[in-house]
């Protein structure tokens, strides 16, 4: 699947199978929110992002309206991923059980913190929000973070 963000004039490419897989994990955790990391790579001209996989956090806590994920102890994992496949952390995903795919102010604040962290080398991490029910994935929206804003892909 190919998504486009007009604001930064960038593309995002991800397979439908991968979105479905993420959705299955999200449905398994219904009615609580759940999420994790997205990994992939940019094209040489940095105009296209290929999301190739998702990663579950080693520790997390989800409730109906909130999800906290840890990343402690995962530096080694991300280093190995880069060394072996030249792929890296590109963003975050989480579910909104029985909710919309609209991001919340909490989501925006988290993305601001993520982008400003010295350990994060990218300026435009993406956020995937999946609307899930107890049975299935309803909808999914990708957002690009840019200068304290989250802007949807179409």
């Amino acid at each position, binding site marked *: 699947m190919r998504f486009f963000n007009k604001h*930064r*004039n*960038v593309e995002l490419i991800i397979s439908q199978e991968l979105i479905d897989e993420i959705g299955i994990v999200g449905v398994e955790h219904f009615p609580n*929110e759940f*999420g994790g*990391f997205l990994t992939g*790579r*940019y094209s040489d*001209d*940095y*105009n296209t*992002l290929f999301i190739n996989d998702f990663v579950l956090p080693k520790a997390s806590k989800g409730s109906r*309206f*909130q*999800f*906290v*994920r*840890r*990343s*402690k102890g*995962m*530096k080694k994992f*991300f*280093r190995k*991923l*880069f060394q072996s496949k030249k792929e*890296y*952390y590109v963003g*975050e995903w*989480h579910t909104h059980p029985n909710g919309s795919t609209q991001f*919340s*102010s*909490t*989501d925006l*604040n*988290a993305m*601001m*913190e*993520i982008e*400003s*962290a*010295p*350990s*994060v*080398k*990218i*300026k*435009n*991490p993406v956020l995937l929000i999946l609307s899930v029910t107890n049975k299935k994935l309803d909808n999914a929206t990708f957002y690009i973070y*840019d*200068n*304290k804003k989250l802007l949807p892909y179409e």
Partner: protein
Amino acid sequence: MATNKQEYLQTVLETHRMSHVEDLVNKFKSKRDEVKDALTSHYGSQIYSPFDSGSFKKHTAINTKFDLDVVVPVKRDSFDTLDKMFDSFYDFLSDEFGENATVRKQTVSIGIIFEEDSDGDVISLDIVPGRELSQDQYSNDKKLNLFVSSDYGIFSSSTYIQTNIQAQIDHIKAKDNERKIIRLLKIWNNNDGKEFKSFLLELITIKAFDTEDISGNLWEKLQQVMTYIKDNVTNDSFKLIDPGNSNNDLMDTLTSWGRTNLSSRMGTMLDRIESNSDNIKGYFPTNSDFEEEDKSSSSGYGVKTGAAAFSTPPDNQRFG
């Protein structure tokens, strides 16, 4: 319109980033290396390799006020007494750099403030000589005795203080969340009379994170740390142990009035920000020199390092 506290604090930190003053930082580093080379050449085998410390090394520096600290570990047998060591360093640095700089004795360091250069920049360095406790012991445990040339809280009557600066540096390693709060508290402190030691604010922030479950966005973390300070510093049993020497309690550098003052200042700030979010701007100002910078180009995915590299996302992020 109400201020978005989280967003505003991000801007405060952004405008205080050291990367905005890279040219100036390079001048500091160049002078620091010059001084290090002079010390190494002069003292030779009397000292171990000088190393960097202070806020720069700890990644808690802010661009409105900073200096570079250099610690010089001195071998035990090089000087009979600590005051002779301190005087020797002062005399040498005065002879070597005194023509173009003001060299002065400070609490545990010798300050060198170089004359303004053609760009109007003033470079200042703090040189901290410290003698190992016994011959060759420094290599094993990094402990040093520092000469104290003026008041240092309850140590005003003593003439030396034992510490382990490497342990102090290690204490804040890989603590990104704590560093952000420390920078914000330093920005407040510098803007508000600089009554409190940066090291005290550093230790109290780390202790708050160690003791409490500090989480949420940047504002929420700052709010929780400020509440922790307000609630605890007036407690007589509250201690802030120096990671460089377990016998040093940084709380002893505050008088009883100082503790009450710190607690009430935190309380007032929290109340005023709660009653009107715009009040946060008075306590935590942005650095207006760098406010207008647009950090992103208009197209393409941005990377901070010039090329894609692996990232480790920060710990403990909350989504809703």
